């Protein structure tokens, strides 16, 4: 058991790690901030508002030294949630070990490194699909002998469910991803090494509130994985064929309304992955009761840790052999899921495999999520406290001065910007230039493994942003498909028809169709909300401009003006709204855009007022789950602002 941690500066995170290790924690789980995850230095335009926010900022080997100061790397098991820039962060980690006299063969840990789910859900990609896959294959081929105790990749289905995946989709897309990775590694390693490569692959899965079905899902994944190993890859050693997985339980279903109920949901979800011994998780991470409010405080994390401890030590959960053995119901569920997953995997394969099928899978996820949102809105999917049993007593949990969440100090960003500038000044410039050249050459030649040049770059003191920029130069910039364009049109119902009618009326009065820009400023990759808003606005009859995640405020302003939109809707969930929203407003003003701006996402109550005062017209948070109602507001707002005939 360990807690996923990291925030602000390397030094502060180091202190946190040391405290946790002193308390008996045996490993590290490092959370990096979004600039580090996407390959930007703290002083990059896109890093604004995000430095040190959702994790620690690591810009060069000096930061990595500070992060790991005094921690015995040869004894540590370090898990890093890092993907697009995994090769780089591993190189920094190895460099620190090397400079501290630790043999790389002793290093143990995991880099998440599953890029497909970044394109489909998580959003911290940096390079186009093919070069990204090559980086992964290079890392696997490199570590299997050089850093043999390292798990170079952890295939994630967790994030797929968080983006709306059904159980079948979660299984099918994760296993298709594994196939895409293995197929690429196979030609890069000696044949006799390959079964070990297969055995090194582990998974990170989700467990939702329908916990019986979720348990069946894990059994199904185990069976399919073994079958894949035997039949497609000829692996025979049962140890290497075992489906190894860790879990983070579902967070998408955790509510802002009556947030105390979330603890009950978390407990039930934890059961899904612990109930049956034949499919039990090797590691478990639980979110906190205040998931939909903001970042958890130490007390909130402790409460979740206690759930695990009570399950493990007070209950009789771990006392029995597999309790579902021979259960007809369980076997039936498993068979059904296996059948569904096989069919969906065949669709992906037909489209050329997981890499080629990214646009297809993304669209499927957006569709599934839309169905989920629709069912909640219609009351078909009951969410206690949100769409049923909504009357409630005031919650004492949120009474504190902090509103029940953790806050990150904005000064971290300023000092990180200064520090990275000084670092670049202080290093051997000629050596850095040489390393950069070498890196570029390695990147340009597909046959060359990227790791040696990346290690050289780490040693020479290059920065995260420089490493990624060199690769972006060679591989090209990339924007992942948004999945919204091909999402099918909604079935009409009374509410939608009424909305369309209003959109039509206001459009006629305006002279042209209501046009909305849905924008995601900054590095925040949470796209679910923006996607659902974009699709619904389209279904309501509006013209919608949605360019996906990772836009600079300047780009949003330019798009708003050039596209002549009537309203701008911004979505931010990562906590950078206080920095980014005013900047977007400023850019819009400067560009001469006279349009109302609405904002949605994780916006703590205390920040809402400030945004409204800065000129935002409306603020929406997860409690506003009725998207139709939001749409109605927007039509009204457009009508008012642009002096069109009343929408009502």
């Amino acid at each position, binding site marked *: 058991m360990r807690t996923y941690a990291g925030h602000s500066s390397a030094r502060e995170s180091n202190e946190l790690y040391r405290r946790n290790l002193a308390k008996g924690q045996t490993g590290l789980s490092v959370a990096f901030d979004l600039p580090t995850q996407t390959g930007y230095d703290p002083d990059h335009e896109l890093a604004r508002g995000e430095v040190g926010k959702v994790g620690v900022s690591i810009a060069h080997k000096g930061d990595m030294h500070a992060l790991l100061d005094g921690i015995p790397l040869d004894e540590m098991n370090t898990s890093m949630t890092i993907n697009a820039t995994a090769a780089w962060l591993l190189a920094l980690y190895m460099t620190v070990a090397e400079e501290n006299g630790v043999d790389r063969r002793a290093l143990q840990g995991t880099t998440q490194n599953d890029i497909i789910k970044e394109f489909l859900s998580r959003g911290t990609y940096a390079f*186009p699909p093919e070069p990204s896959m090559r980086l992964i294959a290079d890392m696997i081929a490199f570590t299997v002998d050089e850093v043999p105790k390292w798990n170079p990749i952890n295939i994630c289905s967790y994030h797929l469910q968080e983006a709306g995946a059904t159980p079948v989709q979660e299984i099918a897309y994760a296993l298709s991803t594994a196939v895409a990775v293995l197929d690429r590694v196979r030609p890069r390693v000696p044949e006799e090494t390959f079964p070990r490569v297969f055995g090194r692959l582990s998974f990170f899965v989700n467990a939702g509130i329908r916990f019986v079905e979720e348990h069946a899902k894990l059994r199904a994944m185990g069976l399919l994985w073994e079958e894949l190993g035997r039949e497609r890859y000829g692996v025979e050693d049962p140890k290497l064929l075992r489906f190894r997985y860790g879990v983070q339980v579902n967070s998408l279903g955790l509510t802002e309304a009556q947030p105390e109920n979330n603890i009950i949901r978390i407990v039930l979800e934890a059961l899904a992955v612990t109930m049956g011994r034949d499919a039990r998780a090797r590691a478990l991470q639980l979110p906190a009761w205040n998931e939909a409010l903001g970042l958890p405080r130490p007390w909130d994390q402790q409460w979740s840790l206690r759930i695990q401890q009570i399950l493990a030590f007070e209950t009789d959960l771990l006392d029995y052999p597999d309790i579902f053995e021979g259960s007809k119901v369980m076997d039936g569920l498993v068979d059904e899921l296996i059948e569904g997953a096989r069919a969906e995997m065949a669709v992906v394969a037909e489209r050329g495999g997981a890499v080629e099928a990214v646009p297809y899978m993304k669209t499927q996820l957006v569709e599934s999520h839309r169905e989920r949102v629709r069912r909640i809105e219609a009351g078909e999917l009951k969410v206690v406290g949100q769409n049923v049993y909504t009357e409630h007593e005031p919650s004492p949990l949120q009474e504190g001065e902090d509103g029940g969440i953790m806050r990150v100090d904005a000064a971290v960003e300023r000092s990180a910007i200064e520090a990275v500038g000084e670092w670049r000044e202080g290093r051997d410039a000629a050596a850095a230039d040489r390393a950069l050249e070498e890196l570029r050459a390695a990147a340009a030649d597909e046959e060359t493994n990227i790791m040696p040049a990346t290690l050289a770059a780490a040693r020479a003191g290059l920065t995260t942003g420089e490493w990624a920029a060199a690769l972006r130069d*060679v*591989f*090209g*910039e990339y*924007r992942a498909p*948004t999945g*919204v*364009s091909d*999402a099918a*049109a*909604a079935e*009409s119902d009374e509410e939608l028809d009424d909305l*369309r009618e209003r*959109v*039509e009326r206001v*459009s*006629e009065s*305006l*002279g*042209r*169709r209501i046009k909305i820009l849905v924008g995601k400023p900054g590095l925040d990759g949470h796209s679910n909300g923006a996607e659902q808003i*974009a*699709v619904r*606005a*389209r*279904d*309501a*009859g*509006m*013209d*919608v*401009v*949605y*360019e*996906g995640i990772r836009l*600079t405020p*300047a*780009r949003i*302003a*330019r*798009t708003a*003006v*050039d*596209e*002549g939109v009537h309203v701008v809707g911004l979505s931010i969930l990562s906590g950078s709204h206080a920095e980014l929203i005013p900047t977007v407003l400023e850019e819009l003003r400067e560009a*001469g855009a006279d349009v109302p701006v609405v904002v949605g996402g994780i916006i703590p109550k205390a920040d809402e007022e400030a945004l409204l005062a800065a000129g935002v017209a409306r603020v929406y948070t997860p409690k506003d789950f009725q998207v139709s109602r939001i749409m109605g507001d927007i039509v009204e707002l457009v009508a008012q602002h642009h002096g069109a005939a009343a929408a009502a």
Partner: protein
Amino acid sequence: MQSTPDEIGRRLRERDRSAAPAALNLIEDRTPRGREATARLLAEVSPAALGGEAPAHLIGVTGPPGAGKSSLLSALVSVWRERGRTVAVLAVDPSSKRSGGALLGDRARIEHDPRDDGVLIRSTAAGGRLGGLAAATREAAEALAAAFDLVVVETVGVGQSETDVEEVCDTVVVVVQPQSGDVLQFLKAGIMEVPDVLVVTKADLGAPADRARRDLQQAVGAVGAGRVPVLAVSSLPPGSGVEELADAVDAHRAALDADQRRPRSRRMSALRELTAEHGERALRALGGRREAERLLAGQDPRTGTAELVALLERSIEA
């Protein structure tokens, strides 16, 4: 700062980029008030007001959905900017029929520096109940031609597109991806007019793109248009063939007599718009198509399309 339509038109004529979005907003406005304002705006940028045909190169980029048009434009825009040319892109997206709304996705594919005033991208939905898109796109192209070096219209379609967009363009580029047989069949069967430039995208896929290029080259040769360039390009970095395509498009423009072609297309557009607005009846009222064409041919060749339509309408009333 609210500008009058005439001011907006004048600013465009002075190549003031900041007037372009307002111009487009007006042009898309289909109310009588908007139509009237558009007419005034367009009068300011008509060939008569400019003292000749707009110097811009009007380029149509068409092809089936997913062929790679927007990605190609992304690559072309950066080549054109390196060459110091300013570019406006009008991206026409197919729209959702049921609701009339549309997700305008082309823009996301066209990478550009948002602080670069030399690029403008505007997305519009094809169709939609407010109607009249074809005319709006043509008018937009005409207006932007006063302010940009290049005006590109991206539309979905193969050859015989229902819009009159191609009529307005100096150069029509048809874009296909490897293994899409339709265009090849259309060309062979002579159903499709031969474009000015043919492009096979996704050249990075190798052999299939190569084969498609050869097949198309042969097909255009067979219908006696062997001079039409057929190019294979890759829009994915590092990219290939994009510079050559930019050259081919330039070469087509250089060989073109715009003073001849544009007045003729304006006359055709005027007739098309008249019938779209008032039906075939309007033509009969003018004594038939032939008679109407003769009426238009008698006008000053620098007369703008909007004025030509107005002239026809007046003739009917008279």
